[in-house]
């Protein structure tokens, strides 16, 4: 099982589901930003200090911290 925090820069993945452990408010926010099941996510790069991660989803760029990305299952 792979989460968004494990994805290497340059890879493209598909969102499978959210883990139940994640914050509900955050999930609601992410849903609004396009993080829905089936969405294509391409990881662009990791910040200089190893966190956060920059990615492209639905045609725009967004960044997430690893602790938030690890609740999102991808394939």
């Amino acid at each position, binding site marked *: 099982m792979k989460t968004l925090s494990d994805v290497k820069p340059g890879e493209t993945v598909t969102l499978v589901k959210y883990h139940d452990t994640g914050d509900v408010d955050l999930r609601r926010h992410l849903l609004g930003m396009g993080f*829905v099941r089936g969405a294509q996510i391409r990881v662009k790069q990791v910040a200089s200090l190893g966190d956060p991660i920059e990615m492209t989803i639905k045609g725009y760029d967004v960044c997430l911290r690893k602790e938030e990305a690890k609740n999102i299952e991808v394939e």
Partner: protein
Amino acid sequence: MTELIVGLAGNPNVGKTTVFNQLTGMRQHVGNWPGKTVERAEGHFSHGDYDYDVVDLPGNYALSAHSMEEIVSRDFIVDDDSDVIVNVVDAANLERNLYLTVQMMELGANLVMALNMNDFAKKKDHIIDIKLMSELLGFPVIEINAKTKDGFEELLTTVEKASKNPIDSSEKLSYGNEIKGHLASIQELIEQDSSLLDVPSIWTAIKLLEKDSIVIEKVQQSSKSSQIMVEVDKVASHFYDVYQEGAEEVIANARYSFIDGLMAEAVKRPAVEKETTTDKIDRIVTNRFLAIPIFIVIMYLLFQLTFTIATPFVDLIDAGFAALGEYLAEAVGNEMLGSFLQDGLIGGVGGVLVFLPQIILMFLFLSILEDSGYLARAAFTLDKIMHSLVGLHGKAFIPMILGFGCGVPAVMATRTMENESDRLLSMMLIPFMSCTARLPIYSIFIAAFFTANQGLILLSIYLLGIVVALIVAGILKRTMFKGLSAPFVMELPTYKVPSVKGVLLHTWEKTKGFLRKAGTIILGAAIVIWILSYLPMGVEYGSQECVLGMIGTAIAPIFAPLGFGTWQAGIAILTGLVAKEVVVSTFATLGGLEEDDEEGVTQLVHDTFTPLSAYSFMAFCLLYVPCFASLGAIKQESNSWKWPLTMVCITLVTAYIVSLLIYNVGLLAGFG
């Protein structure tokens, strides 16, 4: 003339404010939403037979009860008697922009879409069939260019037409038969209570499924509430059985499938997206190895440009006010009135107005950094440091750094942070960054005691400020600001050339706010300090015999444990509240010296302090209550007296504890 109330709604960075500025120009007012720290910009203009009242709503991705900004926007759409909502949309980023549009449709808003950023869409080879899109959405879609005002005429006439025939935009929304059927079963119950029908029932049904706290509370007032909630639970668990997902996800998916359908029909996109200019710039600017050096260079430039360009103007204003004060004092002839004008009014207000050049420049550069899209990249690069050290957002870094220059623009710079608790916490930390006004204090004391290792002592003071800020942040984060941490989901907008008009208007707005404050709060404080220094009649201004001197004498014992329990130090600390550099001139006055007699002041300091108590006093000056100007800025930015007062308490306690530790540990270590 017909009055038209229009709200501009949309995602962040789509050009709402640019449209707003183009329409209203200087006829705008920027304040806060009643009782909230969210900025509210409102403006007027007329077009044909219409008097427009336009409100620039906060940029949102959704309309949940998630943040103040989102609540403000949806309340405006629901409650205010707005005639039309203009949804400004980034054509190059349609999919995500439409997610908000769809939610406004759920609210049945009387919508007109202003499709902006078409130049970017063209560069990405996205071709949008506007007519078809308008048909599918059920409301007008107008192509505009916010920067050149192309399409504005058509937009305004469309808005005027829409105001005459309001539509219910929820009609064209379709979420598929399965979901529609279940929503209908909830809607049916909602529609039995007319008190719930101020918004379309589909909106209430959806918000209940999304567990929206505000809507749930409202429905609980209804006589039908138990039936409605039972039905909502039933539908939610049914959704879970069918889709293996929570109701919120099911609804979000439904919205996106509606959007996907619309995109498939009305938008042509290349199979593989082209690499954009933003991608190319980002390969350098957010590059793992280059990002930090680039940030340091930009911050260095920001700092240097702000403070070096400002310095001659600051000196000019300073000299101008000093001359004006002297001239007035002489011209008036009357000793008391003269002193009031020179020491009280001109001294107090002039002492604050000298910050004006710095403030103007800082806002100029900061607006450029923000509008160009760089600020978001800096936050991305620095988030790790800020987050692991103090639990703050990456954007908090910039106000902190500016704080080393001057606390006033630094407090104002916290505006770039969207999250309210992050903004407040960073404001609380800014005073610990040693601003340039405190430098004269250190110079005097270092000259008197620490000539051997000046640089080291000065550096230690600056570092002390940073370390204390980190500790205080850690404590505040675990107490006052507990659990308020915002997750870091930040859009990195495409790089853009900022619009000159936007940058200038923004700078002007901020400057105006600062001037207004200087004219009220700071003027008042300056007058109070003058009265206390002048009374009782006949004593020398600001001496031990005046009221301020008496207070200084009375509070002196409080500072004895810190090593500087003298009345002179007491008075200096009190007058330092106006502005920190006043501490030095107070010592001069008290010693009966000319204000710029540095040697005399150094001698005086040498006689009244020991090296250890001098260091303790410097630490106290570093950490205690920032000047009136920055307290005023905090009052203005936080829209409440609570935060400047909190800051006074936090800084006093912190300063006392730190100086107490320094002095007593120093004594034990034999530095007495």
